[in-house]
């Protein structure tokens, strides 16, 4: 497609891919892809879950080697042999899944990879970080241990790390998935400033509005093949809506006006029904670098979806973990169907119908080296019919797993594939399938659609609505305001471990939530 164009202007490309193919057992992840990455451009890479986006940038960042084709750096064919080599070439990457060392502090993580014979230059780093964070409008706790940070904060550290290295090419793989709308706009503005200084940026996202707002050039992948490109000239000529509908057509082959514009739910919550989940005065002790929770109280009735809005790292993870039983609460009560559960173990709470979909899918949601099939049943180990008298029933497990794979459209070469080999969105589908399975009464969703492509996001949101409609109580934690507004009955705003206000999801909810989030009264 761009074969002829890339050769004629090859001099201008910082990095170019020519006919790059990458195969994995049972799948062609990239099928002779051409791509040209130029200074001064934000190159948006789009595609469904499993389309091959992360694989492509894995080759640009030296994690993997192409099976066929070549990579040109400054017009010269250059095999990128290792992540270190990629950094030396000026290619900095923020990966989809966190790559920080959890036991080290943020500063130590940022200093990693320096020459081993030199003392780490801490002061220099601090000055540089201060400069970057100021322009980004974020705060980073340099001396906090990474394991104490929320995933959203870790993502910011990753972005920071790529920028500290003075890259010429910055690759961001779904880096906005944990940011608030404001944070996303700030990142967009920053990318604009960076490309104006002559950097090149590759930006992967599933949110088409971001693509249209921040991009200069768009490439669309489908099943490993590049199926279309919108060059800058055309990009500028088209309006946002025209771009989005063109992308949707390229990706899904069908047209739809604004696919994300879902009307607000019209559901009838039985106001007289007794609450399924009652939380009263829940408190969790803070640690040095993570907020605790203070006097959190709310009720959720059957059929109701309560949203939790707020900037990531304000206690959302602590709240979800305290409810699920993974984190000790210092005081307060949690009642499920009127029965106190705050003293019960994680497993016992689950048996009583409490489900928790974690946002940390590789860290705690799955066992990466185990097959997809087993990962569906991690929380049911020993339960019939998948185990009988403690003995594994291969047939039953595989049959049910195959069914879930079909139902949730998990793209996997086989049921035996280690789950960490799946694309990010497809791992997320495995988690969703697991938590929505039978027996649930109350479900806590922490960023349920993070990493899902458009079609799957919509399908999953519908599933969650259906879940609630069956009479379950749903707690939906998200940084995505659109998601909350399109699904919730009420939205509570969390800041610094406390709920600062709760608003009914009516017409002016957006502004009222926004006011609460910046610290004003609703």
């Amino acid at each position, binding site marked *: 497609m761009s074969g002829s164009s890339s050769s004629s202007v090859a001099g201008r490309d910082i990095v170019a891919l020519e006919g790059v193919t990458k195969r994995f057992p049972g799948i062609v992840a990239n099928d002779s892809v051409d791509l040209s990455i130029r200074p001064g451009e934000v190159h948006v890479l789009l595609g469904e879950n499993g389309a091959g986006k992360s694989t492509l940038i894995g080759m640009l960042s030296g994690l993997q080697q192409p099976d066929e084709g070549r990579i040109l750096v400054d017009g010269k064919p250059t095999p990128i042999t290792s992540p270190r080599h990629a950094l030396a070439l000026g290619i900095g990457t923020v990966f989809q899944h966190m790559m920080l060392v959890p036991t080290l502090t943020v500063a130590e993580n940022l200093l990693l990879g320096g020459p081993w014979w030199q003392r780490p230059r801490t002061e220099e780093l601090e000055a540089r970080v201060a400069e970057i964070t100021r322009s980004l409008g974020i705060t980073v706790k340099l001396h906090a241990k990474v394991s104490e940070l929320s995933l959203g904060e870790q993502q910011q550290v990753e972005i920071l790390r790529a920028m500290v290295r003075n890259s010429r090419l910055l690759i961001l793989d779904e880096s906005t998935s944990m940011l608030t709308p404001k944070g996303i706009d700030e990142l967009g503005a920053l990318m604009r400033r960076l490309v104006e200084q002559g950097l090149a940026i590759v930006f992967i996202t599933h949110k088409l509005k971001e693509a249209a707002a921040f991009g200069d050039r768009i490439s669309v992948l489908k099943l490993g093949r590049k199926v279309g490109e919108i060059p800058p000239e055309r990009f500028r000529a088209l309006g946002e809506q025209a771009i989005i509908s063109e992308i949707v057509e390229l990706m899904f082959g069908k047209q739809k006006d604004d696919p994300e514009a879902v009307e607000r739910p019209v559901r009838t919550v039985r106001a007289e029904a007794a609450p399924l989940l009652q939380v009263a005065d829940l408190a969790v002790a803070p640690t040095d670098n993570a907020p605790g929770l203070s006097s959190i109280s709310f009720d959720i009735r059957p059929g109701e979806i309560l949203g939790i809005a707020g900037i990531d790292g304000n206690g959302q993870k602590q709240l979800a973990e305290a409810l699920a039983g993974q984190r000790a609460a210092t005081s307060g009560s949690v009642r499920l169907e009127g029965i106190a559960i705050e003293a019960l173990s994680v497993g016992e709470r689950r048996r009583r119908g409490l489900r928790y979909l974690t946002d940390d899918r590789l860290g*705690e949601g799955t066992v990466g080296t185990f097959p997809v099939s087993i990962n569906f049943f991690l929380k049911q*180990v020993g339960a019939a019919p998948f185990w009988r008298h403690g003995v594994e029933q291969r047939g039953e497990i595989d049959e049910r797993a195959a069914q879930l794979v079909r139902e949730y459209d998990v793209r996997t070469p086989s049921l035996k594939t280690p789950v960490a080999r799946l694309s990010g969105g497809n791992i997320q589908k495995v988690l969703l399938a697991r938590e929505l399975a039978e027996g649930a009464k109350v479900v806590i969703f922490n960023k349920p659609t993070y990493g899902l492509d458009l079609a799957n996001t919509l399908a999953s949101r519908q599933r969650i609505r259906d879940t609630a409609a069956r009479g379950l109580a749903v707690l939906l934690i998200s940084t995505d305001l659109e998601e909350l507004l399109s699904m919730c009955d009420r939205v509570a705003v969390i800041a610094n471990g406390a709920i600062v206000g709760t608003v009914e999801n009516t017409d002016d909810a957006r502004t009222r939530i926004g006011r609460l989030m910046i610290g004003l009264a609703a």
Partner: protein
Amino acid sequence: MSIDTAPTTSAAALDATSAAATRRDILHRLLMTLGPILIALVIAGCILLAVGVDPLAYYGFVLEKGLFSPLGIQQTLTRMAPLLFLAAGLIVAFRAGMWNLGGDGQFLLGAVTAAASAPVLVQIMPSWLALTFSFLIAMAVAMIWSLVPALLRAYQGVNEIITTLMMTFLGTSLANVLVKLVFRDPSTTVPQTRTLPVEDRLPRLFETTITSGLLLGLAAIIIVHLVMTRTAFGLKLRIVGANPRAAVHAGLGVSGLTVTVFAISAGLAGLAGAVDIIGVQGNVRADWNPAYGLAVIPAVFLARMNGFAAIGFVFLLSVLSIGGESAARRLGVPNHFTLVLVSIVLIVLALAEYVDHRYNQSRKA
């Protein structure tokens, strides 16, 4: 979204290629295991040359004494019995991500309790019942011995590598003290426990000198393998080993499982001690410490914690240790040269793995 069409059309072809791929995989595995062992033999041979011993003679003795002479092979198979129990215990612990390096202490305490109880018990009950009881006592004592590191790890997060190693030093000393002060046989001058009469020991197999403990050891390791790979309990342990945070998230009782793992692992080590005493030795002499526990660790690693592969490597280890003992005697090489050999094998294997990885990377680049 109808993406699944592509794979189904070529599913049969895919199956065929994947079968070929697994065959190639197994071949590659074999090569990657046997190749380094050969290289290690050459390196160890050079060391022997350097100290003035003819390596061919050494290896010849090892093979002849450990494998090809009728008496040697019987000794080798007998030696396997305790080693198999120890390997089974290590497989449970390692698969659950817990480094129980206290095998020797647990082994010796099991051995001493078996040696102390068996001769007494056979006098008051039928010998099969007496032996069963001493096995159980040995197991229980070793389990209790593992409680300190287990509880520290489960509830305080204290690293078990250090605690189990410390407990092994304490355990060997305690075993010694028990032999010298508590269970000492008053009828002999050498400090040792009372001796279990030969006719009360575990029966020998057929007309040979091979102990039937070998069968117990084989049963133990195969059961452990099946439990770890086929049951819910084994899966829970593997989840704890592969991703402890996922285990917490999935609602597994990680602390309880940790204590259980230590108990099973130590219990099997205690049984190893008992099977060596009740099957072969008959008593424990003071200062006796064969250090099987540490020697088995590399075999379990080489087997990648697979029970069946471990049987093979334990056999190899037995050949080396039986053959090595006699070759050492005849050629004047220190007895511990077998350990040197095994560690060279491990180092070469690790290097081979690294080189293989680099080669794969650079071939694609």
